[in-house]
């Protein structure tokens, strides 16, 4: 069992950008997206994040699993929301509307009547566009950001030295701990432990995970004492740290951050000053009503 990061150099434009600029841009766009329920504006953001996705040079094989996960989650949640609870973040879809389908079910003596209206369907569509846009905005990060740069990136974004170093250290520990896990799994299998054939109820099955979880965790804790002593002997934390990798902004990074700021300010102005961006539905959609 070999643990590998999803990142590998792809020579893409995104990799040439400073990771801090990319984080800032992503969060600025995120807070811009959540200003809108109007699908016309959401389509702009959808196009923007898809452009970013295209620039990442990812293959379908690499991202197929995550796309499946996102689509199942988004469609499942939106279906539940649309069918049974009816509305979301906007009041326009709260009640009434033009009915497409309505049924009355009797479940355990309780009368429930799922209703689908044109407004709810259009709202669900807007929700799907918005949720996929937000997911795609951050989906590319594990594939396009070098794990060696996370510590220095978060330090550069203002996180205290010790917290940033702890994050950096966590990324470095992963291969070692994955190897320890693999060794422990092999040792337990040699003793007759069958991970694939855990039997019993939920409680029994979880309890039977202990022969794997406990030795790996305790072994890691014991080795942690040695690492702590070694760091203390080297006077860790007495002065601000220096980092092996150095990050510096260049013109394209400033342009990216400025673009994010402009998008966010424009979104807020459109929403607050011009009152646009709330839920919108085309008139022709009403023809769906029965």
């Amino acid at each position, binding site marked *: 069992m070999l643990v590998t990061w999803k990142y590998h150099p792809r020579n893409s434009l995104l990799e040439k950008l400073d990771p801090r600029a990319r984080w800032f841009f992503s969060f600025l766009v995120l807070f811009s997206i959540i200003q809108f329920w109007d699908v016309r504006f959401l389509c702009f953001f959808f196009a923007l994040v898809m452009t970013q996705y295209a620039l990442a040079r990812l293959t379908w094989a690499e991202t197929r699993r*995550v796309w499946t996960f996102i689509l199942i989650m988004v469609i499942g949640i939106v279906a539940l*929301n649309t069918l049974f609870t009816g509305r979301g973040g906007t009041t326009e879809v709260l009640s009434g509307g033009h009915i497409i389908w309505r049924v009355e079910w009797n479940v355990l003596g309780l009368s429930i009547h799922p209703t689908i209206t044109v407004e709810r369907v259009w709202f669900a569509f807007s929700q799907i566009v918005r949720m996929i846009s937000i997911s795609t905005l951050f989906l590319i990060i594990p594939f396009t950001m070098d794990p060696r740069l996370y510590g220095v990136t978060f330090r550069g974004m203002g996180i205290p030295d010790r917290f940033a170093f702890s*994050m950096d250290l966590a990324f470095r520990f992963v291969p070692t*701990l994955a190897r320890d896990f693999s060794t422990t799994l092999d040792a337990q299998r040699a003793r007759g432990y069958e991970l694939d054939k855990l039997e019993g109820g939920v409680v029994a099955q979880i309890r039977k995970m202990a022969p794997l979880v*406990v030795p790996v965790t*305790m072994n890691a804790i014991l080795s942690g004492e040695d690492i702590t002593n070694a760091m203390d002997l080297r006077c860790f934390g007495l002065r601000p740290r220096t980092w092996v990798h150095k990050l510096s902004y260049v013109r394209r990074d400033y342009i990216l951050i400025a673009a994010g700021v402009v998008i966010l300010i424009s979104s807020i102005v459109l929403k607050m000053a011009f009152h646009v961006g709330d839920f919108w539905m085309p008139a022709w959609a009403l023809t769906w009503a029965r």
Partner: protein
Amino acid sequence: MEKKSLWEFGTREVVYAAIGAALYGVFSWVTNFLALPAAGNIALRPAVAIPLFFGIAFGPWVGFLSGFVGNVLGDFLSGWGFWWYWDLGNGIMGMIPGLIAAGIVSYKAKETIIKAEIFIVIGAAVGILVPSLLEIPFSGIDLKTAIVGYWLPAAGTNIINGLILVPILMVAYDAVVARSGR
């Protein structure tokens, strides 16, 4: 005996937060990779016991970072993107049980385990509630969907996993503490 400071973040905490995060990330990835068996719709995600336990053993900051960074690592290893509010929720889940860390004398004492179990339930419930509620403004769902679709299944399975595995880890850790003298 030296009195522990609850919010201290020295060298020891830096190292154990990193170890907790890496363990949580690796166990999460293994859960996905090996496709562990599940009963009904309850997936076995034993990894959640790690931030809960690291919080109890090393304090709230260690629990928070183990949960937050560990969830980031697990998603990165599996290639599932970056879900910052779920990472935050996992961090809070590890932080809350950490509030009892300073007062623990014996990790295998009955009263310590009961106290830990109570804080595990609170930690998992509150920790998962935060991202579930944040889904309302981000995804546009309503409160009922957030509770039924996100909070109940996620918090429920985390509580079950935590209640079973964390006491086992605490008893094992008690022996480690006795051996190392820390």
